């Protein structure tokens, strides 16, 4: 078969796929007779109410000299690792605000960082296309720097996000600008699986974020500049289990819902969405309609509270909305509180016990927000 014939067949097949996709979309819309918010209101539920002392900024972590791009909590004791444009990773004690480690990175253009499940190592990645692992217990070198204990190289594009597989210090998943996600075996430095890429059906643009299912660590979801989120099974690297359409812009952040049956996404189109893993339906859109100057602020990062009732979303204009996921209403804007960040919120994360939220911003600070007053652990 000649090349032009193949091309023709490819075009025809793509058209068929697109029209089938349209049909599927229409069918879904028919089946989706309501979304979560309408159902909940119909049931007479009312939104969570936040008083002025319910969520306050109790700590400001200062020390970075550049924009903070990423942060992660330890699963155990309350420590945080943050990555910044100044080329450093800082490990903080969240309770005392003290810095326990300041790691100078070989490549200053870091975009992501993660704590290992045991809290003994940190991983980071960025424009150097490599994921570097540092063991916090190793002795420092002559110049006072912590040595890199392992470099995971193989990506052909920047490393945008990384997360350790829960309960193991030995595996982690990275997402990259080369359109793929990779599961690494850290002890050998080998790529165990590559999700997506040239000959496999995966993302068709840079992958910006990953989130591993807390209840079933074999499943993870990835968000990409191709406006989709994809669900993967680590045992099957050849194709995604499901692709979730709906967003109209780059999906900057994905996070699994605490029970593992749903996940949330945040995108450049200014909305967050909740998707159901088993049915593939888009359950809810969280969109704030007040747009100043027609510039829609991008959602840069999201996190769920332990029960899932609250969705925290950080925006590029410095706002940090707390959404009531059930009723799709904003119950609090951390950006309007006293002592809030002065720049865009680039990252946020909830502590392991759900009692505190940490936000990182381009104003070079991190802030810890604690639930004060009567602590309803919601």
């Amino acid at each position, binding site marked *: 078969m000649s090349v032009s014939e193949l091309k023709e067949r490819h075009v025809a097949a793509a058209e068929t796929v697109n029209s089938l996709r349209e049909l599927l979309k229409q069918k879904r819309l028919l089946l989706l007779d309501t979304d979560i918010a309408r159902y909940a209101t119909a049931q007479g539920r009312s939104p969570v109410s936040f008083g002025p002392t319910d969520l306050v900024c109790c700590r400001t972590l200062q020390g970075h000299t550049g924009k903070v791009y990423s942060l992660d909590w330890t699963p155990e004791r309350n420590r945080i690792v943050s990555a910044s444009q100044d080329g450093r990773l800082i490990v903080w004690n969240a309770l005392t605000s003290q810095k326990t480690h300041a790691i100078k990175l070989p490549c200053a253009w870091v975009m992501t960082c993660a704590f290992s499940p045991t809290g003994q190592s940190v991983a980071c990645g960025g424009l150097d296309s490599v994921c570097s692992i540092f063991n916090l217990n190793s002795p420092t070198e002559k110049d006072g720097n912590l040595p890199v204990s392992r470099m995971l190289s193989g990506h052909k*594009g920047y490393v945008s996000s990384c997360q350790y597989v829960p309960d193991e210090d030995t595996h982690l998943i990275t997402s990259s600008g080369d359109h793929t996600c990779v599961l690494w075996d850290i002890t050998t430095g080998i790529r165990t699986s590559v999700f997506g890429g040239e000959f496999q059906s995966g993302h068709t643009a840079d992958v910006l974020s990953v989130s591993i299912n807390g209840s079933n660590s074999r499943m993870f979801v990835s968000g990409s500049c191709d406006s989709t989120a994809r669900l993967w099974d680590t045992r099957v690297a050849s194709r995604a289990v499901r692709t979730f359409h709906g967003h109209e812009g780059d999906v900057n952040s994905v996070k699994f819902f605490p029970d593992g049956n749903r996940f949330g996404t945040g995108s450049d189109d200014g909305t967050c969405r909740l998707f159901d893993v088993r049915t593939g339906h888009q359950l809810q859109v969280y969109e704030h309609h007040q747009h100043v100057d027609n510039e829609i602020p991008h959602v840069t990062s999201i996190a769920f509270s332990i029960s899932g009732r609250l969705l925290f979303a950080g925006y590029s204009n410095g706002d940090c909305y707390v959404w009531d996921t059930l009723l799709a209403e904003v119950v609090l804007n951390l950006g309007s509180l006293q002592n809030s960040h002065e720049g865009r919120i680039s990252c946020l994360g909830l502590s392991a016990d759900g009692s505190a939220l940490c936000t990182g911003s381009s104003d070079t600070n991190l802030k810890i927000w604690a639930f004060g007053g009567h602590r309803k652990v919601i």
Partner: protein
Amino acid sequence: MAKILYKPVPFTEDERENIKLTIQSNVYGYLGILLEGRDRFEEESLAAVTKEQSTDETEHIGSKSNTNCQTIYSIGPRLKAFSDWLLKTMVSGNLEAIFPAATREYAPLVEELLKDEAIRATYKRRNELEMLPSVSSYFLERAVDILRTDYEPSDLDILYAEGVTSSNGLACLDFSYPQSASDDKYDTEDQHDTLLRYQLISVHARGLGENCKWLEMFEDVGMVIFCVAMNDYDQFTVDGNGLSTNKMLLSRKFFESIVTHPTFEQMDFLLILNKFDLFEEKIERAPLTQCEWFNDFHPVVSRHRSNSNSSSNSINTSPSLGQLGAHYMAVKFKRLYSSLTGRSLYTSVVKGLEPDSVDAALKYAREILKWDEEKPNFSLTEYSMYSTEASSYSP
């Protein structure tokens, strides 16, 4: 080049090792293109010969099989087997897998291949091989030396080599400007320049993905320097969809996406038109209009054009075709830039291999950054000057 200019030890041993492997695999790449070209030329010649044969049917009825025909592009079966294997390895992307063992085992075969008449004939017609970059001749001439395991790339080799900016797409260089003799005429206020540190970040776009999301990390840089190789106007490459595209047009598309990116809304851009020496030489034989964007290039060149060697020194001679072409290209980019952004583009023509040329361009970049810093001061002084004049006119 900046590394060679500003650092006492430009490259570490590891880097040299990597560069050597890059150069060697590049040479294999060029060889592959050459072999593909040979295949093509052979087919064309055979087709031409068979056409001749079919017109003389009465004489050659018996000998129909083409395999009996020999053209100057044919190579012996052993070399052909090697050539086929090399091409197959390259196409499947496994060239890295056969390194570095390849250099030892296959070196004698490669040497034989390069001496073969067929390859030399193909090499003579290399201008017709669209995919073969102009810089390949520099390396192919010395291929046998380069492919040896003990080959050490010289500084010039490194400059000429393609793909040497680190494979992962990013390279950083911190430097401050040394005071050179010609800077004596600056007044003392400029002495503090020696303390200013600059960071030159080199980004090879291909390595960082086609989507420009990573650009957001550079929103605080002082200036973006966009390099375009001038002699790319007649070179082609295969893009993501497998289509053969003009390299200059690809550069233009990339340029457009960068200058219009929201991250760089108020950013200063310096366009460096690089490889002027190669361009000047090429434009004499291949018209600029080969690139469709430049199809309105109608240079008025006087008949008594002087030799390009002396044109840069004498002010009395009219500009060479190369200089006219460079000026035209700069104007095209400037117009494109102001139509997209409403601002003006800074341009500089550079011969990437001449230290002075590169140094001048970087100094220009430094000046632009200084102008930006001092702009607010100027507007204030203008105002005060104006107000004193007004008061001097008051009755």
